[in-house]
C-alpha cells in the first residue's frame, strides 16, 4: 500500500471510529426505570383520558377511592370503607392521604373532584362507566365521609370508582384545568408519583413522592422497591421496543406476543376483550338470528387467539375474561365451532354484508383478516372495510346505523366489569344517546340488564348476570373471541406483577 492509499484508509478509519466507536453503551441507573409509552399521553386530566397511555400515566399520578387487588377483588385505595346500593352510598376515607403540596385529601376535596368529573360541563367520556347514565351528586357528610347520590340506578359504582378516570384531582388542579390537562400543575396529584417533566414525543419523567404512604396492601407486599423515578420515552414500534430491552436501553416495554420467547422475564397484561358484534339495524342481514349463528360457527376463539396473539391470550366465553366478576365460563353457552358444516350447508352463501374492522388487532391487523377470510370462505359477499382505529371508531360508533353490519370490537375495559361490554349491546342505541351499537330488539335482555343495575347483592347480581349472558349468547348478539392482551418485556432486575393482570406501573419494582 502506498502513502496516498494509507492516508485515505486512515481518513475512513477515523471517520468510522468517530461515528461508531467513540461512544458508550446503553446508560443504566438503578434508581430510574426506563419504560415506553406507545404514544404521547393526550391529557393528564383523568376525566379526559382517551388512549391507553393516558390511563397508564394517570394511574401513577392520581389515586382512586377503590382499586382491584391482585386477586381481582375490589379493595380500598383512598377509601377505607364503603357502602353502596344502586342509588349511591357513602365512602369512608383512609387517614393520612395528601396531595403533592401537602393538602389533606378529605371529604371536601374528594367530593369536589368527583362532582367536577361527573359534571356535564366536563364532558368526560368515562363518566357513564363510573356513575351510569344519571346525574351525580357527591357531598362531604363530614370531614372523612363522602356521600354519593345517583339519580338513576347503577350497581357498578364500586367497580366504577376503581377506574382511573375517577382519580382524585387535588384543589390546585381543579383551579387550573388547562394546566391539569398539560400536566403542568405539580400540586394536582394525589397518587404515588408526580410528573417531573413532560416533553412531547420525547420523554415523560415521573418521580416517586417522598411523603407517599398510601400503598394498598397487595402492592406493599410486592418484592423489591418502587423506583425513585420512571422515565417514559415514546415509540410505537414493538420490534424496536424488544431490541431496546435486549440491548439494555429500556427496562420495561410492550413487545409482540410472538417475540416473548426472546425474553426470560415478561408480564402479561389484560386490556379488555375482543368479540364480534352484529349491527341489527332494519336493513342488516343480521336481524336474522340464523345468520348470526352461522357466523359464530365459522369462527374459532382458539384459532383467533393463535393468529392474533400466538396463543398467549385467553379464549373467552362471554364479554369478559374468566377472572372477571360474574363472567360466564361455561363453554357450552357459546355456539359450537363447525366451519365445515356452515360451508357444506351454504348457510352464508351469497349473503351480502359490510364488515368493518380496525387494523389494530394482531400484527398488521391479522385478527380482522382472520374473520374476513372465514366469512369469505363460507361464501359470504363481504364488503371488507379494514381501517385504522380512528376511522373504525368513526364508522362503528357514529350515528349512521346502516354503515356496517358486522364488526370486530375491542374494548378497553378500565372498570374490569362485564358492564363495559354489556352496555354496548343493551339499552339505548348510540344515535339516541346510549352506548348500544347492536341495536338489538331484546326486551328480555333489557329486563335482565335493568335488574342487574338495581341489584347490589353480589350473589344475586351474578345470578342475574349469568341469565343475561345466557340470553345474549343464545341469541348470538355477540361472538366472544379472546381477551385483549399486551405483553411487556422486562429487563434483568425489574419485577412487575400487574395487579389482577391489569396495567399499573405503580406495581413495578426494582430488585436490589
Amino acid at each position, binding site marked *: 500500500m502506498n502513502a496516498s492509499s494509507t492516508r485515505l484508509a486512515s481518513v475512513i478509519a477515523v*471517520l468510522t471510529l468517530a461515528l461508531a466507536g467513540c461512544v458508550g*453503551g446503553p446508560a443504566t441507573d438503578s434508581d430510574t426505570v426506563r419504560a415506553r409509552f406507545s404514544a404521547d399521553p393526550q391529557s393528564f386530566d383523568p376525566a379526559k383520558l*382517551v388512549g391507553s397511555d393516558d390511563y397508564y400515566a394517570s394511574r401513577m399520578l392520581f389515586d382512586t377511592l377503590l382499586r382491584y387487588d391482585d386477586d381481582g377483588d375490589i379493595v380500598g385505595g383512598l377509601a377505607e370503607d364503603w357502602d353502596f346500593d344502586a342509588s349511591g352510598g357513602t365512602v369512608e376515607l383512609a387517614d393520612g392521604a395528601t396531595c403533592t403540596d401537602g393538602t389533606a385529601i378529605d371529604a371536601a376535596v374528594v367530593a369536589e373532584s368527583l362532582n367536577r368529573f361527573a359534571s356535564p360541563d366536563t364532558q368526560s367520556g368515562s363518566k357513564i362507566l363510573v356513575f351510569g347514565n344519571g346525574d351525580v351528586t357527591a357531598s362531604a357528610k363530614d370531614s372523612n365521609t363522602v356521600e354519593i347520590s345517583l339519580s338513576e340506578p347503577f350497581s357498578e359504582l364500586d367497580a366504577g370508582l376503581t377506574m382511573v378516570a375517577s382519580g382524585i384531582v387535588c384543589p390546585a388542579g381543579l383551579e387550573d384545568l388547562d394546566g391539569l390537562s398539560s400536566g403542568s400543575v405539580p400540586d394536582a396529584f394525589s397518587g404515588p408519583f408526580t410528573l417531573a417533566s413532560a416533553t412531547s414525543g420525547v420523554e415523560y419523567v415521573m418521580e416517586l413522592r417522598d411523603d407517599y404512604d398510601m400503598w394498598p396492601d397487595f402492592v406493599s407486599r410486592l418484592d423489591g422497591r418502587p423506583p425513585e423515578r420512571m422515565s417514559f420515552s415514546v415509540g410505537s*414500534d414493538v420490534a424496536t421496543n424488544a431490541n431496546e430491552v435486549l440491548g439494555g436501553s429500556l427496562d420495561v416495554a410492550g413487545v409482540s406476543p410472538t417475540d416473548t420467547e426472546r425474553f426470560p422475564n415478561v408480564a402479561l397484561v389484560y386490556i379488555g376483550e375482543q368479540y364480534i358484534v352484529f349491527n341489527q339495524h332494519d336493513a342488516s342481514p343480521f336481524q336474522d338470528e340464523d345468520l348470526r349463528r352461522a357466523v359464530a360457527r365459522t369462527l374459532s376463539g382458539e384459532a383467533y387467539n393463535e393468529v392474533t396473539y400466538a396463543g398467549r391470550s385467553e379464549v373467552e366465553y362471554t364479554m369478559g375474561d374468566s377472572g372477571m366478576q360474574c363472567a360466564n365460563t361455561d363453554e357450552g353457552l357459546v355456539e359450537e365451532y363447525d366451519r365445515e358444516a356452515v360451508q357444506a350447508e351454504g348457510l352464508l352463501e351469497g349473503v351480502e354484508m359490510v364488515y368493518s374492522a380496525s387494523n389494530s388487532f394482531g400484527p398488521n391487523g391479522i385478527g380482522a383478516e382472520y374473520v374476513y377470510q372465514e366469512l369469505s370462505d363460507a361464501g359470504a359477499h363481504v364488503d371488507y372495510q379494514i381501517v385504522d382505529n*380512528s376511522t373504525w371508531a368513526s364508522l362503528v360508533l*357514529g350515528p349512521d346505523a346502516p354503515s356496517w353490519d358486522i364488526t370486530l370490537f375491542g374494548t*378497553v375495559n378500565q372498570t374490569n366489569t362485564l358492564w363495559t361490554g354489556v352496555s354496548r349491546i343493551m339499552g339505548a342505541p348510540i344515535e339516541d344517546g346510549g352506548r348500544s351499537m347492536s341495536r338489538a330488539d331484546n326486551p328480555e335482555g333489557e329486563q335482565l340488564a335493568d335488574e342487574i343495575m338495581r341489584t347490589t347483592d353480589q350473589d344475586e347480581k351474578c345470578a342475574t348476570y349469568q341469565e343475561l349472558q345466557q340470553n345474549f349468547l343464545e341469541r348470538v348478539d355477540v361472538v366472544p373471541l379472546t381477551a385483549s392482551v399486551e405483553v411487556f418485556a422486562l429487563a434483568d432486575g425489574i419485577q412487575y406483577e400487574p395487579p389482577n393482570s391489569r396495567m399499573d406501573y405503580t406495581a413495578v419494582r426494582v430488585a436490589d
Partner: protein
Amino acid sequence: MTSVHSTVEGRLGHGVPQRLIPAWVGTPWAWFLTRKLGTLVLSFVFLVIVTFSIVLLIPGDAARAAAGPDASLEVVEATRQTLGLNDPVWQRFLTYVGDIFSGTLGTSFRVGTVSEQIAVRAPYTLVVAGASIVITLVLAFILGVGVTVLTRNGRRTWLAQAFSWVTAVIDAVPVYVRGTLLIILFALTLGVLPAGGAQQPSSYVLPIVALAIGPVCSLSRIVRREAESALQANYIRTTEGWRLSGRVVYLKYLLPNVVTAALTLSGLMLSGMIGGALVMEQVFSWPGLGTSVVNAILTRDYPVIQGTILVLGMVAVIINILIDVALAAVDPRHLQSRSDA
C-alpha cells in the same frame, strides 16, 4: 450570444431613470435571488393549500378521536364544536392561514400549539438529517475523488470493482433495512450502542449512520464518475504538463469541476433524506417530526399534520434553493435561468 448583463439591462431599461436604479439591481445575482425568492413564495402558497386540503381527505372523525371511544354522541358533538370542525371550510382555511402568520401554526387538538410541538421535535429530525447531510457531502467527495485517484489509469482494478459492488449493494438496501441491520450488529450483537430512543448522546449514532450511508454510496459513485471524466479533460492534462503537485491538481482544478455536477444531484438527494429521516424515526423510535406526524395522523390531530408537513416541505424547498445558491457561487453560469442558458 447574449450576455447576462445585456439581458438584465434589457428587462429594466424601459422608462426608469438609470440614476434611480441601485447598482445591485441589475446584477445577475439580484435577478437570480429574485427568482429564487419567487420560487420560495410560490412553494409556500402551494404547500399551504395542499396541507390544508389533505386533512379534508383523511377519513374518520377527528372529534370522535379526540373525545375517545367511550364518549357519547353528545360529548363528541360538543368536542367537534370546541375544535372548530363545524365551521365552514373557507373559515377554517382563513383560521389556518392566520395561525401560520401568527407563528403558532395552530393549536393542537391535544396539548399546546403546533409551533411548540415542532420546536420540541424538529431539533431531533434536523440534527440527524443535518449530520447525515454533512457526512454525506464530506464522505462522498473523499471516497469518490479518492477512489478515482487511486484507480486512475487502470491501477488497482480490485479497488474499483470493490467500490462499485459495495456502494451499489448498500445503496440498494432501503433505509429501514439498513437501520435494522445496524441495530442487530451494534446494539444486539456487540452491545455498544442503544437500539433506539434518544435518551443519551450515543443514541444519535445509529440513526445518523443508517440515514447517511445510502446517500454516501450513491453520491460517491456520482462523484467518482464526474472525477473520472474531469481527469480526462485537457485542463487537467495541462496542469500536469506544468508539473504541478498532485494536491494542487486535485484540490484546485479537479474538485471544483466535480462539485458542480455532484451538488446538482445532491439537492434532490438531500431533500429525499428528509423523507428518509421520517422512515428512520419509526425504526429507531426517534422522537422527531416523522413520528410526530404519524401519531398526528393516527389521532386525527389536523393542526399538527398541517403544520408539520408545511414545515418539512419548506425545509426541502429551502435546501434546494441553498444548493442552487451554492452552485451559482461555484459556477456563475448557474446565475442564468434555464431559458437564458
